[in-house]
C-alpha cells in the first residue's frame, strides 16, 4: 500500500473530464479530496490524498501524466518563510492536522510539511504573512 498527498493541475481542456473517477474505476485507488478549485476558462487544481497498491498507484500516475495532468507532491506548496515568521504561534490552534506546533524547549514554531494538507487556513491569519502558497 502507498498513500501520498499530491497536487493535480488540470489544463483547461481537461477540466470537464472525469479523470479522478478513472483513478478509482481502473486503478482501484482511493482518494480523499483535500482541496479543489476550477476557474472558468483557466486551469483546475485539486489536492488529493491518494492511496492504493504500489503498482496501481504508479499506473495511475502514468495515466494522469498521459492525459496532460501535471502532478506535484504537496509538501512543496505551502512553505514557511522563516525570515518573516516571528514565531508567535497564533497559527498553532488553527492548523487542523498539527502540522504547525510549538517546540516546547525553544518555544519556536515548527512547520512539518509532511502533515500539511494545504487547507491554507494559516496563510491569511499569519500576522507577518510568513506562510506562503506556491501552487
Amino acid at each position, binding site marked *: 500500500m502507498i498513500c501520498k498527498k499530491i497536487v493535480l493541475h488540470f489544463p483547461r481542456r481537461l477540466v470537464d473530464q472525469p479523470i479522478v473517477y478513472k483513478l478509482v474505476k481502473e486503478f482501484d485507488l482511493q482518494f480523499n479530496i483535500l482541496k479543489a478549485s476550477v476557474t472558468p476558462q483557466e486551469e483546475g487544481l485539486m489536492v488529493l490524498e491518494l492511496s492504493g497498491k504500489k503498482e496501481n498507484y504508479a499506473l495511475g500516475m502514468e495515466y494522469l501524466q498521459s492525459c496532460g495532468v501535471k502532478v506535484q507532491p504537496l509538501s512543496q506548496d505551502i512553505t514557511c518563510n522563516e525570515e518573516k515568521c*516571528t*514565531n*508567535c*504561534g*497564533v*497559527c*498553532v*490552534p*488553527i492548523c487542523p492536522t498539527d502540522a504547525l*506546533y*510549538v517546540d516546547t524547549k*525553544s*518555544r*519556536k514554531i515548527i512547520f512539518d510539511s509532511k502533515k500539511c494538507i494545504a487547507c491554507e487556513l494559516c496563510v*491569511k*491569519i499569519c*500576522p*507577518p*504573512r510568513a506562510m506562503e502558497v506556491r501552487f
Partner: protein
Amino acid sequence: MKTIKEINEKIKKGEAVVVTAEEIIELVDKKGLKKAAQEVDVVTTGTFGPMCSSGAYFNIGHSKPRIKLGGGVCKFNDVPLYTGFAAVDVYLGATAVPDDDPRNKVFPGEFKYGGGHVIQELVAGKDVRLEATAYGTDCYPRKRLETYINLKDLNEAVLFNIRNCYQNYNVAVNLSDKTIYTYMGMLKPQIGNANYCSAGQLSPLLKDPCYKTIGIGTKIFLGGGIGYVAWQGTQHNPATKRKDNGVPNAPAGTIAVIGDLKQMKAEWLVGTSMLGYGVTLTVGIGVPIPVLGEETIRYAAAKDEEIYTQIVDYSESYPQMVPGSLGEVNYAQLKTGKIIVQGKEVPTGNLSSYSRAREIAEELKSWIKKGDFLLTEPVVPLPGAESGYAFKPLKERPINYKEI
C-alpha cells in the same frame, strides 16, 4: 540594598551580574531569594507582540520652494499620515491603511499593508514614496510634492508609541456559532481556540508588577535599539485586581515609549496584518530591572504558573463592554497548548512570540554585560495601585443640535 548608581559602577567595570527573567527563576529556586539578591545586579525582560498604539513622527526637511503639510495631506507609500503640525512634521500611525484599501468591504479584509509595514520598510533602509498636497500660503507656496524619501536623509525619525507593553492581557475566545476576526486573531466558533498575548514570565511589567523600578525615563531596549519610557501608556490601569504576589490578574499597567528610529532594526519592528481587523506593528521591548533588594528579586522571579489572566468572550462580552470572565488561567497552563474553558479542552495560540522575547532579554543582557548600556534612575514613578489613577469608559452624552 543596592542603588542604581552602584549597579552602574559595576556595569562600567564589566563586573555586573546580569540574568534574564527566566534565569532568575531558576537561580531563586536553587539559591533562595537572599543569595540571589546579593549576587544579581540586573534582571532583563523582553516582549515581542503586536502593539497597535505605535507610530513614528518625522521631520522630512524643507523642500524648495517650501510646502506646508500642516492642514494638507501627506502619504508614505499611499498610507496617510497625520499632518496637523507645522510645515514638515508628520506622524505615521501603525494602524493607518491606504485610502483605497477595501478594508472589511469583502469580509474578512486582508489588510496587507499599512502604517506598521511602512515603519518596518523605512527602518530596513528602503526608499518610501512620499506624496503630499497642501493649500499653499505666501510663505509656503508649494501645493504638491512627490518624492522618494529614505530614513537616513530625514531630520528626525522618532518612534513614539503611546501605549505598549501591556502588563498582562486577556485570553480571547468566541462563544458564538460563527467564526470571528479580532485583534486577538481568528477565533473559531464555540470556543474553538483560545488566543493569548503575553510573554508571561519574561514580560517587563509582569516582572516589576508594582512599578518599583520602571518609571518615566527608564532606558529600555526598543525595536532593536535604545529607547526610553516617556510616560505611563494610555489606558494605564494600575487599580486592576492583583494576586498576593502583586501581579495583576487582568490587563493593567502600560507604558508610552520613545526612541530614535534610525538606530532601530527591522527585525524588531514588524509590520503586521490581522485578518478582518487591520494592520499594526509588532514591537520588541526589553526593560532592565535593577536589583535594589530582595523585594525586586521576589517580584522578578514570578513564574508562569504564578501569573494569572482572564478568559474573555470576544463575540459578545468584549465588543458590548459587558464585564465578566469565563475563568482564570495561568501562563504555564496556556503554554501547554491546551486549557479547559467551560468544560471543553481548547487549543491555545500566542500572538506574542516567546522565543523572540527570550532573544530580547538575552540581547539586553549582552549589552549590559559589555558595559554598553547603563541603567537610568526613573524621573517619576508610574502611577501605582494606590494613586487613584483610573481607566474609565467613555461617558456619552446626547448632543442638543438646537443649541448649536
